[in-house]
């Protein structure tokens, strides 16, 4: 690759690097994330990886942390190859890894305390030690007042502090932080770095590797790696990089380091002054705008006025209310209090006319990735009612203005971020709005693309008179706005031109000005907590003599870690109402549905008679049928046409025709025949109905014979005495309900267990399993245990439902049933774990588990057809699938009054199934991401 640096400089003369990468390449499908990286990261330093999003920083860090499998090349960390599982296992207690994304590896439903406690337990600290550390860490980070708050409800800055606590709980030698401050307000950012500095002061040997997109931050690190497009551009101290490129700032240096073709079009953004005449017209006005979600106030009495053609910036941390305010202005959210006006008209979500004057670009890229660039533009033009004849010209204009010509027929999903962002802007502009509302449009875009984007915004404002309302994290972007508002915790702290803000606060830069405003606001909010926290920090980290954590060489099963995962899983289950409902109520509902739905009883068959004889004999024949519980008589039939019509409508399941002279012919001994038609649309029912009709017919004959004294003649040659064993009334529920329990007890626990693992994969917290000493079995058993408990609960509930609601007698040994239920729950959850190793998304886990459990359980396990009647593949599945054996036991205990001694043959395969599936899952589970 161009720009790959072969001359990576080690940190200090003679010092061994903390990580050494040689020829490291990584690709995700077609995307090359890293291309032949050679790099030595110096030990004991603060190393920064800088560059925009999506250029391989995160991939590189995950390789160093050992959370991702190495595809090509060598990665040595802390003196050993990360390709070797044994080395990873040995060094992972010395590495702490905080992945990208706010609180990505935290568990949102768990409290601050529970989160840190979980990590502490994984690294082998006992209860008292964990408690001591948690107290120290939370005090030093200022999280102490919030230890009981769920992680999901923390602000971005607090989440990152919590992430740091979790990372530091085991005293790592190498701390890897992936964009820890992205989306965090400047004050929290400053506090965060101060914490890191303090920790490094106390543990000078600790190496820190940080990825960042903020050049201001990168400037403070000891040593930098500038990256672009999966390759290293340059390495060195910030001063070296600036000196080498002969530029003034690190951002300029980075741009200078980029390859020529990327730099070519770059021009510094120039902002002409606004034309003086435009000041008197107000474009947006907000007065006392407030939004509450429950008891949480997201936006608190926000007021401002924005003039036409002004570029108005909104600054603040994630979750401070910027997006909510913008949504209220666009009419996406209704304010709880206060009002807003666009061009003098009050914002009304139902008023479509104002929407045509506004263009909106949301935080995430939100265009249709399934439509091409042209189709996206056309769709939006049509929805904004641009006249059909003008659309081609309008699309052309946008394509030209935003330089989209090369990708006009491409799908946006595959385009680079900067292009997609231009497309979003083009779409927002297609109907020529007078105002643009842009919510963090430049997150994750490289500096050159950002400058180009800003130049477009400036042109729109200055030449077209478009009012622009934009939110951003970047201070250099904020400086380009005509005026900015600083927001914090739902309140606007101050609104002024940037230079005025800097001057008023007496700070050097806008960032410092912002921090000083925030500090004021925080001080007003909750006393002087932060400074206290900072002093506490230094003491705490120095104070305790850290207990040597359990380190290295631990490959055997550790109960504490397994139980730690079990506790985590249990807490998460308890706090997720949908999963819990499905587990408990869902299986009950499904049992009711199936108990009634899979009924094989045929009763109340509707029939009518076309009686062409109309004698007592013919009526007697009819009465014979209508008197039975299987048949219900309907209005008699008058003609064949009526018979046809009523059978077609499905009203009649059976029609009888008694021929003329029926009684007379019987008396004379002539051949007579009653005709019967059965509705064959439902074959099983028809089959049963045929049996009933035949039986009723012979019954009638027997009765007739008895009356005429011919009993012996008709009585037949031999009797067949049918004994319906175990279910003398031949009730469907008695047969089906004990068979439904195994089905539900397989499907739902397997699904929930599979979900619990796949959820971690999808949400990213699986990385905790990758980078902690947790072994596969510990992880799996930890996940399994609470699900077994839940399965047992629902088993007991289903059994009670069977006896109470369905009136199915429970004749056999209850302890036998319970033991079998436990073994089966173990097997079902283990099967869920096994399935989870193949699945990546939760939705795939749901449907995959449904398919893989329902088919074998329904078709091959003897629910309808006994296993012994099956052949071939189905038979093989039926012999080994645990449902078949559990079914034999439930039917045996429920209906056949059997106990353990009669059923032991089914217990052995049932008991083996769970451990076998668990071991297989452990073999297939990956301890690294691929």
């Amino acid at each position, binding site marked *: 690759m161009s720009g790959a640096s072969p001359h990576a400089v080690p940190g200090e003369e003679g010092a061994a690097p903390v990580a050494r990468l040689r020829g490291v390449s990584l690709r995700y499908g077609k995307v090359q994330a890293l291309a032949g990286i050679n790099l030595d990261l110096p030990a004991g330093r603060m190393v920064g990886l800088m560059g925009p999003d999506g250029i391989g920083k995160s991939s590189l860090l995950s390789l160093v942390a050992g959370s991702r499998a190495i595809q090509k090349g060598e990665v040595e960390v802390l003196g050993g190859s990360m390709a070797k599982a044994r080395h990873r296992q040995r060094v992972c207690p010395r590495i702490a890894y905080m992945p990208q994304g706010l609180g990505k590896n935290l568990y949102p439903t768990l409290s601050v305390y529970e989160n840190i406690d979980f990590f502490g337990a994984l690294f082998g600290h006992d209860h008292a030690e964990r408690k001591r550390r948690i107290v120290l860490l939370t005090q030093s980070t200022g999280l102490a007042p919030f230890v009981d708050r769920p992680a999901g409800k923390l602000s971005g800055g607090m989440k990152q502090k919590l992430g740091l606590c979790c990372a530091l709980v085991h005293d790592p030698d190498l701390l890897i932080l992936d964009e820890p401050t992205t989306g965090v307000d400047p004050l929290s950012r400053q506090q965060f770095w101060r914490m890191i500095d303090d920790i490094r002061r106390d543990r000078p040997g600790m190496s820190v590797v940080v990825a960042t997109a903020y050049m201001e931050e990168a400037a403070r690190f000891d040593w930098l790696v500038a990256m672009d497009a999966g390759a290293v551009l340059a390495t060195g101290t910030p001063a070296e990089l600036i000196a080498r490129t002969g530029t003034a700032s690190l951002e300029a240096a980075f741009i200078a380091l980029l390859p020529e073709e990327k730099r070519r079009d770059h021009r510094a953004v120039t902002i002409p002054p606004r034309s003086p005449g435009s000041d008197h017209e107000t474009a947006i006005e907000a007065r006392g705008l407030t939004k509450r979600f429950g008891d949480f106030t997201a936006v608190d009495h926000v007021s401002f006025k924005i003039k036409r053609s002004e570029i108005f910036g909104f600054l603040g941390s994630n979750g401070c209310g910027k997006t909510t305010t913008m949504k209220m202005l666009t009419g996406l959210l209704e304010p709880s209090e206060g009002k807003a006006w666009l061009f003098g008209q009050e914002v009304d979500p139902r008023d479509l006319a104002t929407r045509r004057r506004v263009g909106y670009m949301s935080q995430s890229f939100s265009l249709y990735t399934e439509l091409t660039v042209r189709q996206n533009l056309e769709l939006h033009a049509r929805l904004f009612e641009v006249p059909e004849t003008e659309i081609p010209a309008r699309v052309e204009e946008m394509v030209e203005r935003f330089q989209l010509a090369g990708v006009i027929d491409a799908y946006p999903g595959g385009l680079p971020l900067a292009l997609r962002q231009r497309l979003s802007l083009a779409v927002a502009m297609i109907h020529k709005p007078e105002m643009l509302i842009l919510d963090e449009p430049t997150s994750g875009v490289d500096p050159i693309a950002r400058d180009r984007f800003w130049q477009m915004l400036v042109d729109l404002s200055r030449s077209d008179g478009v009012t622009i309302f934009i939110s951003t994290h970047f201070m250099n972007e904020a400086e380009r706005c005509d005026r900015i508002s600083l927001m914090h915790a739902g309140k606007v702290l101050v609104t002024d031109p940037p230079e005025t803000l800097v001057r008023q606060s007496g700070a050097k830069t806008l960032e410092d000005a912002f921090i000083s405003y925030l500090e004021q606001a925080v001080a007003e909010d909750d006393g002087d907590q932060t400074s206290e926290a900072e002093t506490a920090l230094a003491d705490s980290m120095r104070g305790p003599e850290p207990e040597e954590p359990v380190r290295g060489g631990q490959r055997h099963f550790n109960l504490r870690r397994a139980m730690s995962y079990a506790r985590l899983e249990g807490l998460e289950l308890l706090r997720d109402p949908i999963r819990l409902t499905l587990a408990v109520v869902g299986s009950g509902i499904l049992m009711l549905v199936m108990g009634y739905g899979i009924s094989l009883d045929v009763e109340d068959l509707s029939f009518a008679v076309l009686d062409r004889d109309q004698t007592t004999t013919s009526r007697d024949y009819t009465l014979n049928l209508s008197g039975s519980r299987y048949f219900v008589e309907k209005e008699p039939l008058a003609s064949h046409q009526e018979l046809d019509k009523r059978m077609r409508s499905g009203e009649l399941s059976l029609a009888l025709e008694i021929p003329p002279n029926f009684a007379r012919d019987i008396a004379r001994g002539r051949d007579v025949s009653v005709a019967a038609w059965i509705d064959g649309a439902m074959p099983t029912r028809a089959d049963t109905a045929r049996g009933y009709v035949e039986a009723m017919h012979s019954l009638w004959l027997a009765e007739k014979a008895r009356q005429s004294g011919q009993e012996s003649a008709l009585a037949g040659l031999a009797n067949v005495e049918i004994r319906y064993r175990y279910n003398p009334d031949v009730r469907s529920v008695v047969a089906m309900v004990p068979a439904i329990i195994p089905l539900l007890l397989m499907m739902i626990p397997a699904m929930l267990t599979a979900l619990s693992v796949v959820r971690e994969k999808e949400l990213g917290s699986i990385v905790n399993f990758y980078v902690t000493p947790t072994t596969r079995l510990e992880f799996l058993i930890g996940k399994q245990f609470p699900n077994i408990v839940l399965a047992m609960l629902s088993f007991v509930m289903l059994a009670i439902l069977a006896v109470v609601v369905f009136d199915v007698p429970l004749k056999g040994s209850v302890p036998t049933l319970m033991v079998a239920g436990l073994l089966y729950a173990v097997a079902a959850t283990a099967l869920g774990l096994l399935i989870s190793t193949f699945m990546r998304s939760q939705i795939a886990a749901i449907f995959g588990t449904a398919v893989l459990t329902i088919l074998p359980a329904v078709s091959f396990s003897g629910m309808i057809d006994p296993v012994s009647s*099956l052949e071939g593949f189905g038979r093989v599945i039926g012999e080994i699938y645990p449902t078949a054996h559990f079914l034999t036991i439930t039917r045996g205990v429920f209906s056949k009054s059997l106990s353990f001694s009669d059923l032991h043959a089914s217990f052995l395969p049932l008991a083996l199934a769970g451990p076998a599936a668990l071991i297989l899952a452990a073999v297939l589970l990956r301890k690294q991401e691929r």
Partner: protein
Amino acid sequence: MRLGHIWYLGIKELRSLARDRGMLVLIVYAFTLAIYASATAIPETLNRAQIAIVDEDRSPLSMRIASAFYPPYFATPKMIDHAEMDNRLDAGLDTFALDIPPDFQRDLLDGRQPTIQLNVDATRMSQAFTGSGHINTILNDEVRAFAQRYRDVYEPPVGLTLRARFNPELKEAWFGAIMEVINNVTLLAIVLTGAALIREREHGTVEHLLVMPVTPFEIMTSKVWAMGVVVLVACAVALTFVVQGLLEVPIQGSIALFLVAAALQLFATTSMGIFLATVARSMPQFGLLLILVLLPLEMLSGGTTPRESMPEAVQNLMLAAPNTHFVIAAKAILFRGAGLDVVWPQFLALAIIGAILFGIALMRFRSTIGTMA
């Protein structure tokens, strides 16, 4: 409301679907392989039923009886002794155990009406019931045929001519194929609209739509018509090529009339899909909800088992579900060749239920759409 918006938004839905390979595979699978598989996979009720015989007579007649049970209906009988019988039934090895008493043949020929005992494991409903009927018939036939060689046998005076209409040979495949079509119409209608809405929500495009001059009604209607058309076309193709063509199921009535019923059903179920998508917060939750809703709809609508054998309360409750009416109408039209004069009450019911569901979904969509963005 502007028809133009509904039209273009619907086209957008279709284009999105065309790019979603997973969904396309699901649609094709549901209307081809799934139908074929479920039509051919249903075993006839009696298949290799396990039967054991305790022959205490050991006469030519008892041998004759034993040899009358053979595959495919019955597995070759196991000859066992009396002591084994209960254990084998307990362990679930046999479904039927036939006990031929000592001196059976002699007593029969003497006219003493001996009794054969047939033990049935009645926890295996499907085999137990049809199987014992078959066994009864086989026993009677064998005994009669044997006895006729030695003495006169009485013939009953009144015959019974039984015919099954609409499916004379009672082929399970016919029923299975049509019911799978019906079930898949419901499944896809809910999944396609629900998933489309949740996908928009997860991708943040709902938010985008909402800042445009389009109303929730337009957004929802566009999804309903677009997904409805897809399922309807797929359903027509499946009926013509898979059900009539490949499986050779004769369809009695008018496919066009059935498609009208399907369109009404789709109106109701696509609305239901939207509703579920507004309740679920994520795709996994939608998946779980889907299972809880779809199974009752399919199992209790009369498509799997006859409605009349369900408890009264369940029957009445299920009248509120569109599937119940759709199943009744579909069976009447496709199997029995019924016309509009017969099925209009179901059409009316479907239209009313559809309108109510659409209304509820629209209300819910309007009120939650703000929180979706």
